[in-house]
């Protein structure tokens, strides 16, 4: 499981919400990084899509933050970023120079699948009924997110047929 020492069995609702917010935030930052990488390499369409994903993650994070504030006010969090890694964020190497929008969407789809698997794997270990309900909700949301990306994918014209290798110089001895 891509997490470090989360005590799922004893997770409180507040901690679960805080972790969910961190998961969204981690994905948001990674998508922003990917968008910046695409800008840097003059790949505006992929950058635009990664920004769209970053905005979505920000929206989900804000919704969770509102719920957390309603339920627990400003109680200081007891979980930290160090407990999670790459749950909804795409892998560092999922970005590529000159990605087509289709490749960018496929990378995002793969991370939504990964996030879904995380919640599915955690569910049997949870004991707290409220946390279980939250994780079930988050698991189902990942399916909705996957559908959103699939809708965007369906709108695309066919790819050019160029592969990554078409953009990489043949290495030359220096």
């Amino acid at each position: 499981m891509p997490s470090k020492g989360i005590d799922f069995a004893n997770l409180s609702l507040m901690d679960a919400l805080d972790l969910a917010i961190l998961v969204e935030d981690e994905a948001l930052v990674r998508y922003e990084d990917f968008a910046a990488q695409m800008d840097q390499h003059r790949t505006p369409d992929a950058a635009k899509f990664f920004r769209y994903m970053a905005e979505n993650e920000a929206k989900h994070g804000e919704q969770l933050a509102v719920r957390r504030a309603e339920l627990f006010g400003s109680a200081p969090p007891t979980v930290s970023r160090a407990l999670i890694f790459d749950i909804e964020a795409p892998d560092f190497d999922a970005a590529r120079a000159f990605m087509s929008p289709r490749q960018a969407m496929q990378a995002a789809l793969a991370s939504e699948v990964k996030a879904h698997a995380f919640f599915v794997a955690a569910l049997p270990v949870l004991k707290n009924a409220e946390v279980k309900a939250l994780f079930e909700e988050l698991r189902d949301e990942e399916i909705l997110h996957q559908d959103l990306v699939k809708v965007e994918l369906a709108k695309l014209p066919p790819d050019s047929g160029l592969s990554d290798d078409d953009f990489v110089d043949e290495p030359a001895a220096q």
Partner: protein
Amino acid sequence: MSATCEFQAKDYKSDLKPIWCPGCGDFSVVQGIYRALAAIGRPPHEIAFVSGIGCSSRIPGYTTAYGFNTIHGRALPIAQGIKLANPDLLVLAAGGDGDGFSIGGGHIAHLVRRNIDITYIVMDNQIYGLTKGQLSPTSQKGRVTCTSRFGSLEQPVNPLLYMLAYGAGFVAQASPTDLVGMAAIIEEAIRFPGFSFVNIQSPCVTYGEEAQQIKGLKAISESLVALGHNPADRLAAMDLAQHYGEKMHLGVFYRNPEPAPTYDGLVRERQALLSKDALPKERILDLFIKK
């Protein structure tokens, strides 16, 4: 030292936009460094970050620390000079496998034996990335590159074993497959009083081999903690380090339980001892003139 206010990872991120290929493993390394520095909490102006030449050696520019992108293979001697000139600085050195183990390989033994208190981070991608994919000293035997068209005939060097054999007090390995672990290892390396080394398997997505990309690395990674390895046991560390290239052990191989005195510390002591008899600067040449 003025580590009174709290720093966050973003405080160590500069405005310079990395020009690494999208997906390059070095993006994760810089994130790991931001997090480790935030955990240490030293303000950026108290940190000097030195590198050689290579894609990975661009890393100091992406931090808010004082950076020095030096010359190929010379990060370590320059880092040593900085540490001796101003021992209060937190000094980091970084670079690639080519920079560190090929052209710069001769420097390692001397920094290690002097035990200069710096942290050396190598982004090991088994290739010369910047110059477009030539054989590096850590490339596997048989590797086909533009300088080994029919496959490399050479055995790669083993950076972990190198460092352990030279007597480094802290030797560890990390990878972008575990950013949290990477940040913790870099933090621990910085906190170690003496020369510390972190080898980071950082994939080159453009010229690197498929097996050395994140998926491939995940498949061969094993946590040293999960293996029950005792990092105080140098011989056990050497035994595990022999698997470099086949398995990817993540964590601390060796941490000297009784760290040796550092050269920079000894120099300070000597300076304190002799400074009362020292000549004023304007008479320093008298030392070289026969009376």
